[in-house]
């Protein structure tokens, strides 16, 4: 089963010198620890058992997860700025929920309206956002999907959005208020 | 360690299969050594198990996990499966022993995977035979099947398609078996074979038991390719790589026949199977039809491997029919034929492996002058052919002897006629091949001076010839010692209630 890899071979960590490895550890350590903390918190919620045996298992599991995916959860992220970003996100969240609720009422209204076909006027609108960070793009796109009458169709790397709007009214509001708030979260 | 033999028999190949799959990624050379070593050990273990059974006169029991049988899974080795165990490990070993070069040629980039599949296949078969738990049997059956599909699917031509068909049919069969076990469980609440047999007499009249019986038989028939359900077999076996079909063809169907015997004799007990369900004569007639049509279909084939697959279908008819005759001789014949047929088929497929190592194609016309090219191989082939035809002193004769005498005892002359007919057809079939190999290329001119263009002798390497010759010799040795096999082992495998 000796498989000849046709892929472009990557130079793995093996041929790096010890020093560079140390550098790498230093770079990844905060992400690792943070992932571990989050994982432990989640574990406690999931597990609900606090005896020695299960906690040991939990720590082991969390180590495995952090080992495997510390560079997934925090990718290209400045970790020092994270806590404040989360706080601001918490501030943003109720507003989002409210928007979602409004959006749902709106769609419910459409759904149960006997002359629904007259009310809707679907179209795809496009605009450019000034957001930069992938995370904020992600939050923005998902928020658009959840809020009134709009679904994100595509987000390009440079911030070009195309959005499907169910009627003209909901499309007009974009990018608008929400972009402001999101950019404030991640401090851009 | 001796008391753990029955479980070691399964665990040792299993572990070595896993080890092979790991070694396959690092050092391919070790794979063959491990595989052959573990198969050899399993021969030793299975023989010593059989001897232990013979010495003690009672089954060897083993409790896995230390749980008593109805709660846990128990292993159970008695005369019947002792014999089959030896056959399986021997066949598997002989087939692999000389095949290293073929394997390296055919599976050059996946040798480790091949050996792993091979060993796991054998493990599954051994486990199926040795287990005393109806559901455990299903799991092991699936291991066997899955590895078998893979081994077949890597063949030539339409092998993937055949393997897929086999997979579908095999799944139907296994699922029917599973459903039947479910019915049994519903009726009795147990999965252990002995326990079921103990609980069953109280509910013989129930339709649930009857349907369980029918479903299990149905599933097994699909798996063993009894005639109307044989559709998957010829394609699958003939398209498979010859080394795989050399493993699968001798063993799968025979082990399924064993499972049928085990189910009917041990689980449902003869009392139910032969008098309550009263399927005997129906089953024998089905077998008769199977024998006849298998032989007829074999006549129309123009490829050797395909022809042999139909012969296998016929042989299944022998065993099923002989078993369902319900007489002692018939059952003896069926069980003896499991042993003999495995060896015969192995010998045929081994010689085909050797032939295909040297000659491309397996149409009859490709075999011209093969007697001069590979005399030793063809001698073994002829021995196997004679054995399948049923010529003494090869082993095929003796099982046929018992089968026919079972038929006489049961007064079932249709079965006898079918057996004889198929023997004749087998003679025609094999002599057709032998004729081509022997006569052609023949010279039409100068009949007496007989100048046959000389074909250079070109035998397969000795390492491959050795197992073949051992197998061919086994055919004769088994034949001569079949009396011993019957008196020392098989007759104890059949319950005393059957006359």
């Amino acid at each position: 089963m000796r498989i000849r890899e046709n892929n472009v071979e990557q130079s793995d960590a093996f041929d790096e010198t010890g020093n560079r490895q140390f550098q790498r550890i230093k770079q990844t350590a905060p992400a690792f620890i943070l992932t571990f903390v989050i994982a432990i918190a989640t574990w406690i919620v999931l597990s609900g058992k606090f005896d020695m045996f299960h906690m040991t298992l939990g720590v082991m599991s969390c180590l495995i997860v952090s080992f495997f995916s510390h560079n997934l959860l925090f990718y290209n992220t400045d970790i020092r700025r994270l806590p404040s970003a989360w706080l601001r996100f918490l501030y943003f969240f109720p507003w989002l929920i409210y928007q979602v609720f409004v959006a749902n009422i709106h769609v419910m209204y459409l759904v149960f309206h006997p002359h629904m076909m007259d009310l809707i006027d679907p179209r795809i609108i496009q605009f450019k956002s000034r957001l930069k960070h992938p995370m904020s793009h992600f939050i923005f796109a998902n928020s658009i999907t959840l809020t009134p009458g709009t679904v994100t169709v595509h987000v390009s790397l440079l911030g070009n959005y195309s959005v499907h709007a169910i009627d003209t009214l909901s499309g007009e509001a974009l990018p608008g208020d929400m972009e402001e708030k999101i950019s404030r979260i991640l401090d851009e | 360690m001796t008391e753990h033999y029955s479980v070691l028999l399964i665990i040792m190949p299993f572990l070595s299969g896993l080890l092979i799959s790991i070694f396959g990624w690092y050092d391919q050379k070790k794979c063959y050594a491990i595989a052959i070593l573990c198969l050899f050990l399993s021969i030793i273990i299975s023989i010593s198990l059989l001897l232990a059974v013979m010495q003690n006169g009672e089954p060897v029991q083993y409790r896995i996990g230390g749980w008593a049988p109805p709660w846990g899974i128990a292993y159970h080795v008695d005369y019947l499966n002792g014999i089959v165990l030896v056959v399986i490990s021997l066949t598997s070993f002989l087939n692999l022993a000389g095949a290293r070069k073929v394997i390296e040629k055919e599976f050059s980039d996946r040798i480790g995977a091949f050996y792993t599949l091979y060993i796991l296949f054998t493990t599954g078969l051994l486990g199926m035979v040795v287990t005393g738990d109806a559901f455990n049997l299903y799991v092991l059956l699936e291991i066997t099947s899955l590895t078998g599909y893979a081994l077949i699917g890597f063949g030539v031509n339409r092998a993937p398609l055949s393997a897929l068909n086999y997979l579908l049919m095999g799944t139907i069969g296994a699922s029917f078996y599973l459903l039947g076990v479910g019915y049994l469980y519903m009726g009795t609440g147990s999965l252990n074979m002995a326990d079921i047999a103990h609980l069953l007499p109280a509910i013989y009249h129930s339709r649930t038991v009857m349907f369980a019986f029918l479903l299990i038989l149905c599933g097994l028939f699909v798996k063993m390719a009894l005639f109307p359900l044989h559709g998957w077999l010829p394609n699958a076996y003939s398209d498979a790589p010859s080394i795989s079909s050399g493993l699968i063809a001798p063993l799968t169907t025979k082990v399924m026949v064993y499972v049928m015997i085990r189910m009917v004799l041990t689980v449902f007990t003869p009392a139910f199977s032969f008098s309550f369900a009263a399927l005997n004569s129906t089953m024998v007639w089905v077998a008769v039809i199977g024998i006849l049509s298998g032989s007829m279909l074999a006549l129309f084939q123009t490829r050797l491997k395909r022809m042999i697959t139909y012969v296998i279908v016929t042989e299944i008819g022998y065993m099923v029919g002989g078993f369902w005759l319900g007489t002692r001789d018939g059952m003896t014949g069926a069980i003896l034929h499991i042993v003999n047929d495995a060896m015969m088929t192995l010998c045929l497929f081994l010689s085909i492996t050797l032939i295909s190592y040297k000659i491309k194609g397996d149409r009859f016309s490709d075999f011209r002058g093969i007697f001069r090219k590979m005399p030793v191989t063809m001698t073994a082939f002829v021995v196997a052919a004679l054995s399948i035809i049923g010529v003494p002193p090869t082993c095929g004769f003796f099982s046929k002897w018992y089968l026919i005498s079972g038929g006489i005892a049961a007064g079932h002359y249709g079965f006898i006629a079918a057996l004889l007919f198929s023997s004749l057809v087998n003679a025609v079939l094999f002599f057709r091949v032998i004729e081509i190999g022997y006569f052609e290329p023949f010279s039409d001119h100068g009949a007496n001076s007989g100048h046959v263009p000389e074909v250079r002798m070109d035998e397969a390497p000795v390492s491959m010839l050795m197992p073949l010759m051992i197998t061919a010799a086994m055919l004769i040795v088994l034949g001569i010692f079949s009396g011993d096999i019957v008196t020392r082992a098989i007759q104890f495998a059949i319950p005393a209630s059957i006359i």
Partner: protein
Amino acid sequence: MDDMIAIILSKYNYWTVITLMMIGLYAMIVKNNLIKKIIGMNIFQTSIILFYVSMGMKKDATIPILEHHPGMQEHVYHAADYINPLPHVLMLTAIVVSVATLGVALSLALKVYDQYGTLEEDEINAKIRKASVKS
């Protein structure tokens, strides 16, 4: 009439099992497309799983995880309170087997497609016939 209803109510589960089984079997026998056959195979296997699970069903019983409180070690468990766990165990195995079979079946189907460029059985057979005529 009441008897009929009683019978239906006590057996409808099994009848569904048989219906599903027949659907799967029909697909495996009749359908022309290999992937469809594989789907049929999976339906067939699930129906058997359903059979086992409904077999182990008990009225007024709870799931087979013991209500276990660390304080009371010497609690006696009544079998009637818990659904029969054995069929579940068996069916876990069966599901695993079915997913394994699915994997192998799909890879075989891939190989077939690689060879013939189609998944329809009749087209494949036609191609095989054409190839055998040619040679």
